[in-house]
């Protein structure tokens, strides 16, 4: 199998963190693209949605959407499951949806601010998406003790990657939200020290476009 990846993509990071946490990295090859141009060149012929991460399966088909790629990798090892079974599974899936949902809104905001041609940008779009992000963080704060502290699962990883994306792309907003979410930020500062997080930390690509 082959994972099409970019270091700036928080969804890619989630898959790679999960692979490192589950020891499944050797089950696939990683094609780390280094620009949007490479992305446009290599991904659409494989996957019609054109999004990453996408996993090229051994039969040549593409599996898109990071939660499904995570689930596939989780089926390939016998250690502690990142998608736990039993009643806890729904809580973890909700945490995953919340983490990814925050990332979705953050990416819409940064897309508007960075990628959209300047003459078409609207501040109201950015403000609305960041309002949703802050509501998402509000929803996470009371979950820290029971659902985040000391846990490693796909939901926790999704939240960590969402926080990492905010810190990377919207640092002023990230800093401004700290005071209202002390438990969440304290948890994140510890979790981001894990080798799986350190080794996948986002950085600007050599060629931004």
């Amino acid at each position: 199998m082959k994972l099409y990846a970019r270091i700036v993509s928080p969804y890619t990071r989630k898959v790679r963190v999960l692979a490192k946490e589950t020891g499944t990295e050797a089950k696939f090859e990683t094609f780390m693209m280094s620009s949007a141009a490479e992305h446009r060149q290599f991904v659409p012929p494989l996957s019609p949605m054109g999004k990453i991460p996408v996993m090229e399966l051994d039969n040549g088909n593409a599996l898109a959407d990071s939660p499904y790629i995570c689930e596939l990798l989780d089926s390939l090892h016998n250690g502690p499951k990142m998608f736990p079974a039993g009643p806890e599974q729904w809580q973890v899936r909700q945490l995953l949806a919340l983490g990814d949902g925050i990332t979705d809104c953050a990416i819409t905001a940064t897309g508007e601010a960075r990628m959209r041609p300047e003459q078409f940008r609207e501040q109201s779009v950015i403000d609305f998406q960041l309002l949703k992000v802050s509501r998402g963080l509000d929803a996470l704060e009371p979950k820290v003790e029971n659902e985040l502290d000391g846990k490693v699962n796909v939901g926790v990883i999704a939240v960590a990657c969402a926080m990492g994306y905010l810190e990377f792309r919207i640092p002023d907003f990230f800093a401004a939200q700290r005071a209202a979410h002390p438990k969440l930020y304290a948890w994140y500062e510890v979790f981001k020290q894990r080798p799986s997080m350190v080794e996948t930390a986002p950085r600007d690509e050599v060629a931004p476009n």
Partner: protein
Amino acid sequence: MMKLYGSNGSPFTRKVRVFIGEAGLWDRVEYVLVPPNEFRTVMPKHSPLGKVPVLELDDGSKMIDSPAICEYLDSLHTGRKLFPEDPAERWTALRYLALGDGICEAVIAAFRELYRPKDKQNTALVDRESKRVANCVDLLEREIDEFAAGPVTIGQIAAAIGVGHIIFRRQTGELPEHPALDLAIRAPRLLAWYEDFFQRPSMQNAKPEK
């Protein structure tokens, strides 16, 4: 009774409604329509990110994310599972689920663009998203024999919802007349499959509306 909060224009809401019909769970879920003009005030009360659909469980807790909601509902019935249990069949179904949802996301991205002020509309983006939809349609057309075979799964439901959303937004004029999106020309077999699937009671009970 559980409650499903959603809107009739939302394909993700429709997917869950069709799923409930196919799973035979309407005796346990009540559909609560959130009118478009109340959307921005009502939905944040149910979900921090303000998105539909939301499933309220009997204990009052709320679930977001249509794939997660569907899979939870699938755990509540003893009939044949719409998320296949066999691993190979499961990855196939999830692959089509991602494709169907991907079509909807791209249609929505193009549609939203047309609701911006005229001088802020980025026609290049509409074109890009329309092509993305067309690429997904091409793949479904190519693989129609594979994905339409066998009993109904979440993959078929999501694909039908995706195709239906293209047709719906073209009918309402909220999707540009992009030649890539004329399904009768581009994907005749997929369209024929969809028209047949659309006759299912689960689909008839969840038709798209503005």
